[in-house]
């Protein structure tokens, strides 16, 4: 059996078993979904090890007839490591948020919730591995609908409206992406990344159709930026993240929007080509939006008193970092963007369940001032919150620090005015991040004499273990940053 079979199974297994999950009773559905997730994690780890051992990238044709006539997957070190990261974070998010899923979702809907998660896992893996832009669109649709369902599944008030707003913005994004895709297709007649790259560079060399190329590229950028909540299009994000159940918030903030960005990175690097992207000027527009996102996201976060909304707004700023790194249009910048995706996912996916627990032991009020002393009442959740907050602020030795260093050095390598703008934005936002996160961390660890309530005595040992795993992951992201970066670079340099 050839190695690529594993890559096929990573997508096919969750896809196939999702419909079985829907037919099972809640507990069994949960067990099945989680074991599929573990299996996918193991398979992607095996894939990573094999890719490292062979030190090569390879394509996988889906069926006996290969590309460009059939569908194709592509595996390099970057894809393999992103796959491992996504599957791991998905597993940990579902485990640590699982406690509240039972609480927030009515009993006859839990199996469906896990079905949606299973389909999301398949879509995520497909988005990471696909070598075909249209396959990317199909699985983008699955993850869009899945995310919409994840938002309204928790029965909190307002979640329905948040989901509605999410769907409108995201479907608009999908539509624009599809327009861009059709323009690119009518120019090149290719759907495969390598084919598009070849044709686009021919078109660019002849100097024909530059206008159409620019519009297509802009529509793709606009669509995916909308879907991943880049600054002016972020208005759906705060309610969607803060009103859904913690597991959903973790999945949405750490995986769904990040998978779109990874697809975008692939389209730029492997489809359109970095030089065409640079010459089109689209990257400077992206830079502008990214800087605005970084500053405005942080400013908005400072104004929030509701701690979950604050974390949600900080996502806006963090997504700005990723797009900032992409907008440099260098390989170093893309690698920094992928690393930032990881660092942010690991921290954000941990913050939501941790905050949820802190709120729970503080009487259920999400205002950050009410969290006073909760770090003592829920020690592990407090620690997880502190670690996540410090990671996003960029404190060594956590993942967020390394990510900022990589983004800054990519900016330094680019030079010109872009460097000053990027470094300035990084500096400002670091200060702003410290304002709102430190404020909350200090509140969490101030003494208070709040009486224990019913939630104190819940069994939370498993939950604590999952948070510890998250903390370890964040530490690893910081300590092992060099080797992770080497893996990411290993793929991106041969793209």
């Amino acid at each position, binding site marked *: *059996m*050839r190695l690529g*079979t594993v890559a*096929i*199974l990573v997508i*096919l297994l969750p*896809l*196939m*078993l*999702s*419909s*079985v999950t*829907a037919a099972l009773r809640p507990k069994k559905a949960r067990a099945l979904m989680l074991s599929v997730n573990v299996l996918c994690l193991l398979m992607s780890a095996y894939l990573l090890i094999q890719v490292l051992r062979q030190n090569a990238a390879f394509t*996988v*044709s*889906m*069926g*006996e*007839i290969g590309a*460009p*006539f*059939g*569908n194709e997957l592509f595996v390099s070190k970057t894809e393999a490591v992103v796959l491992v990261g996504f599957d791991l974070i998905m597993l940990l998010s579902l485990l640590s948020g699982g406690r509240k899923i039972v609480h927030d979702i*009515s*009993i*006859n*809907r839990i199996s*469906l*919730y896990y*079905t*949606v998660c299973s*389909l999301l896992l398949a879509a995520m893996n*497909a988005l990471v591995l696909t070598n*075909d832009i249209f*396959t990317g669109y*199909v699985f983008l649709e*699955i993850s869009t*609908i*899945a995310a919409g*369902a994840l938002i309204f*599944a928790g029965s909190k008030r*307002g979640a329905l*409206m948040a989901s509605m*707003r999410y769907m409108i913005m995201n479907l608009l994004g999908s539509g624009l992406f599809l327009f861009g895709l059709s*323009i690119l297709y*009518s120019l*090149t*007649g290719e759907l495969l990344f390598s084919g598009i790259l070849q*044709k686009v560079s*021919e*078109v660019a060399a002849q100097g024909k*159709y530059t206008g*159409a190329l620019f*519009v297509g590229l802009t529509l793709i950028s606009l669509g995916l930026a909308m879907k991943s909540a880049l600054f002016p299009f972020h208005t759906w994000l705060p*309610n969607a993240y803060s*009103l859904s159940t913690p597991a959903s918030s973790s999945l949405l903030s750490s995986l769904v929007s990040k998978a779109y960005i990874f697809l975008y990175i692939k389209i730029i690097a492997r489809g359109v080509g970095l030089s065409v992207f640079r010459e089109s000027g689209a990257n400077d527009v992206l830079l502008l939006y990214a800087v605005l996102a970084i500053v405005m996201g942080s400013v908005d976060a400072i104004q929030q008193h*509701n701690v979950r909304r604050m974390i949600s707004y900080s996502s806006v700023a963090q997504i700005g970092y990723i797009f900032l790194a992409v907008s440099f249009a260098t390989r170093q910048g893309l690698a920094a963007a992928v690393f930032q995706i990881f660092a942010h996912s690991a921290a954000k996916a941990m913050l939501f369940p941790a905050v949820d627990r802190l709120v729970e032991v503080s009487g259920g*009020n999400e*205002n950050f*001032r009410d969290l006073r002393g909760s770090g003592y009442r829920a020690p592990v959740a407090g620690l997880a919150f502190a670690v996540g907050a410090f990671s996003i602020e960029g404190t060594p030795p956590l993942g967020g620090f390394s990510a900022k260093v990589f983004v800054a050095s990519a900016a330094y390598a680019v030079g010109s005015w872009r460097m000053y703008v990027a470094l300035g934005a990084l500096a400002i936002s670091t200060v702003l991040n410290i304002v709102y996160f430190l404020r909350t961390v200090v509140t969490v660890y101030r003494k208070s004499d709040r009486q224990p309530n019913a939630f104190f005595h819940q069994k939370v040992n498993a939950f604590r273990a999952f948070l510890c795993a998250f903390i370890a992951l964040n530490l690893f992201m910081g300590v092992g940053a060099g080797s992770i970066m080497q893996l990411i670079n290993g793929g991106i340099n041969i793209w």
Partner: protein
Amino acid sequence: MKKPISALKRFLEEGSEPLDIEMQSELDYTPAPEEARRGENHPTEEPGHIKNRRTANVLYTVSSVVLCALMIFILVYNVSGLPSFGGADTLIDSEVGRFYIENGLEDTGATNIITPIILSYRGFDTLGESHVLFIALCSVMLLLRFAPQDASSALRAYAIEEDEPQDDDILKGFGHVLLPLVFVFGLYIIFNGNLSPGGGFSGGAVLGAGFIMYLVIYGHDAAYKFFNYKTMKLVSMTALVSYSLFKGYHFITGYNGWESVFSNGTVGTIFSGGMLLYLNVFVGAVVSVTMYTLFVLFRRGDF
């Protein structure tokens, strides 16, 4: 100017004002009682808020109209600049299309060339599309299906059928004549998918429409006898799992270069084209069940 802008921001985040009361209350969720009293999180709106909101509304409407007009102009202008479809000067060399036309019949044994393109060459995309239908179904069920406690007496007893014709002889007469034809036609489209235009998606849509007609004509009780939640679960699960299994078998054997047990058969007969016939049946089952279930869920929230 600051106020209208902040009102516009709020407007974008929370929606316009003239919503009906239910939605409005849904929007004013955030301030928990204590918070609202302290007025920290969401300061109570100042008296001028209605005016600000109206300004925001106007700003929003004007800017969206301008934006849409701009977008339409850009897209139309852009399309006029694209290489003409099928023209001689296009960059597209139709290598892929030519390959399908030249080798399609030989590779797959199907006389309808579209079916193998959808189900075999680009079968992975179509597998994804079928799961788009499935996830739409799951989302609607998550949204609309009753929780067990509401599903009991009160809501179940609420029958929409009051608004629908009951035991209407004219409808039933037409049903007797039309429905068998619709079902047979749907099945024909599915089973002949590899031979003539059609296939799982279109045939499934015809079948689904037939089921919906049956429900509307003969009423809930008659339809419930042969199609309830269990049937739906069973059919869609079996169809999707077997679809994925067949496609997985195809992908893996094809990729590894193993011999597939599905042969192309005699071209032009029903049992030709390898696994295409079975795939069409699975897709048809998924599509028809999804259509019917969506209708049922939007009609009364449960089977």
